[in-house]
């Protein structure tokens, strides 16, 4: 309410309200709560290896038992990428001036001290990311983690040489096509049971395929967001906006 802003006591009122709510929640939680068992967890733990062929229970849960949620989580990343780009004020200028493809930042040549470790870590990070993606069902890891590691591998590349190699438009389209496959593969394999016989081998192939798809999608999404912020939103973005303004005034 606009009238409240004038009064300082509103801060204390808010504080008091939060404390009352916290006390109420804690009191009820400590005195009046019950646990009636964990049937869902027990069933998952007892059946995840036989039903899904995965040795990692978490992978079994998110790629097989509750894959319906994961489809929407993947969609969440897709729309968040759209949201980041959409809410950026640079968007209009950039799309009009077709500067979406190649960008280079004026950056002093990186110190050798910085370049040397990245020369070693970059291939290691790529390998590690791919390993986590594909081995998510045998060890802790999975598509989401592997995709994030692949992105960090790429970030290290940019710390050394800030030149935008990717065409962000094409990367967006790549992400969208991968998302279509993330919907189709579980729909066919899990919901429709298209394979007549499900053995451990077919289950594991499915897990590897889906983990890889998710990993690639996460990689694409995070790379777009990161690149957008580095190349279009940073301090250099101001220069870009000024250039675009000048072009508008000329033309």
């Amino acid at each position, binding site marked *: 309410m606009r009238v409240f802003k004038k009064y300082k006591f509103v801060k204390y009122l808010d504080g008091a309200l939060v404390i009352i709510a916290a006390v109420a929640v804690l009191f009820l*939680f400590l005195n*009046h709560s*019950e646990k009636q068992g964990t049937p869902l967890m027990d069933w998952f733990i007892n059946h995840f290896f036989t039903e899904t062929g995965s040795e990692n229970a978490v992978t079994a849960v998110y790629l097989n038992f509750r894959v319906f949620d994961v*489809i929407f989580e993947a969609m*969440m990343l897709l729309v968040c990428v759209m949201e980041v780009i959409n809410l950026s004020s640079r968007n209009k200028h950039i799309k009009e001036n077709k500067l979406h493809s190649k960008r280079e930042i004026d950056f002093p040549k990186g110190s050798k001290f910085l370049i040397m470790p990245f020369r070693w870590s970059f291939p290691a990070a790529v390998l590690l990311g791919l390993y986590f993606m594909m081995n998510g069902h045998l060890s802790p890891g999975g598509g989401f983690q592997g995709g994030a590691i692949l992105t960090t591998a790429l970030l290290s590349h940019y710390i050394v040489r800030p030149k935008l190699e990717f065409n962000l438009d094409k990367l967006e389209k790549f992400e969208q096509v991968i998302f279509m496959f993330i*919907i189709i593969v579980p729909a066919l394999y899990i919901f429709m049971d298209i394979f007549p016989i499900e053995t451990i081998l077919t289950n594991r192939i499915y897990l590897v395929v889906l983990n890889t798809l998710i990993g690639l999608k996460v990689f694409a999404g995070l790379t777009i967001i990161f690149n957008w912020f580095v190349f279009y939103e940073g301090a250099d973005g101001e220069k870009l906006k000024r250039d675009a303004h000048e072009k508008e005034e000329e033309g």
Partner: protein
Amino acid sequence: MLYWLILAPILVGVGYLTFGNAETKKWVIVAQTVIVFYASYLFYQVKNTGVIIDNLGGYPYPVAITLSANNLSMVLVWVTALLFLGLFFYGYATEYFNNYTGFLYLTLEALVIALLFTDDLFNIYVLLEVSTIVITLLLTFKKDKQAVYNSMMFLFVTVVSSTFWLFGTAMIYRTFGYLDMRILSEMITQVEDPRSLILPYAFLLTAVSVKIALFPLHGWLPRAYSTPSAPPMVPAVLSGIYETAGLYLFIRLNSMFSEVIQINTFLLILGFITSILAFVKAITENDLYTLLAYSTISQIGLIVIGLAIGTEDSFWGSIYHILSHSLFKSVLFLTAGELFRQYGTRYIPKIKGVMKTMPVTGFALIFGLLGLTGAPFFNGAISKNMIGSGIDSTFLYLLLNIVTLGTVVYSIKLATMLFGENKLSSEVKEKKDVPNLQQWTMLVFGILTILTGIFGQPLMEFLYDYSYEVTLGSQIQHALTYTILLVAGFLIYKGWRKKENVIDRIVGIEMSFNAVIRSMVLFFVAVVGYMYWLV
């Protein structure tokens, strides 16, 4: 095969986003028609064989994520698909429909259908989160400052409310070990201490009440709906379709806990306050979209009243009102969009002479208003009668008629746009509008409001197997009440206009973001306190 109704729109949407252009636009409408046919086929299956249950992945019942279609949810899904088809026809020729927004609308359709089918509490959380982002994207179509502020407020309020839902789900999972709503309804009675259910119920109720904009958690809705640059399809989708999903969640939540927790009196009071406060604000409001937003809040208050009363008649009346509200509110919002496009302004006193310049839109507006106020033969009348039939006390019946009276007054305010001289600049006057696809779509919606009214009882039996007896005497009585209210409303409207500024200052409080969050915490504490005292 319920999941195909959810996955197909997403696939079509992403395909259209990646590969679509102006020529492939028509395939979206073709795909949507196929979706409507599939929904109709599923509806016939539900009607003949009963509830359809899909345990995803083939895993046993309480363990897997389950999609279930009973007659309530199936009808709402069917109506959602039909409404989206109508909206796609409406938006086909406009500039608002490119591959980006087409993707967003199709995804929103999939999310709403998923919200209506799913039985899993955590799945609902994920769906709420994704739909928040999708709607925020739709609201910031043109990035002017006010639009960004309104959509950011909507984003943050909804994200906080989704967090409440997550907390509630976590507490339920801790207590019972399951996430499936159907098995939870059975297990709820096995709790030793009923007070252990207070926290989960309060958390979940706060989340759902924000979504359906129940007083005092309604502050986000007028801002979100009246974003200056949002195309009219967006508030139409939000109020006609998204609120439907929220109301269905509200019903399911209360029925899940109904064996142990009943706070119907509390909800009844809140419903009345919501209705009355909203129509008072609507009467003083001069911006077209904001007025319709408050009208939506007022109608939702009416639906909550019907649910809280508890009798079977009023329950089905509320359900029917959800359907009629989707129809006539979509008509009104789309008409408002047309008026804004033609007149260039949303300021009601400036818009005049609609019947002369845009007769098709004018008729659609009339149908929408008659449905909203509950005129005899329109769909609003049947639902309001059914809600009213469950009330015993005369005081509450009087309050219900006051709500109808308020609705009539702001409808008259809207109706003044139809007549009078078009005093705007000559350029606007000369924009002689030829009835196009948009206007005919609106008129079809408008005609549906009268058809669902005249054939209301057979439709009710067809959809829900519920028959409601209406005698000729009660119909005449309701028609008479309506006429009296119409006359009274007209007189009040004339008298109100003189005092408008004073009343506006008293009631015209807009809630800021801090106020909405404050009211959320207050509501939560109030529900917890009330239940602790009650149970």
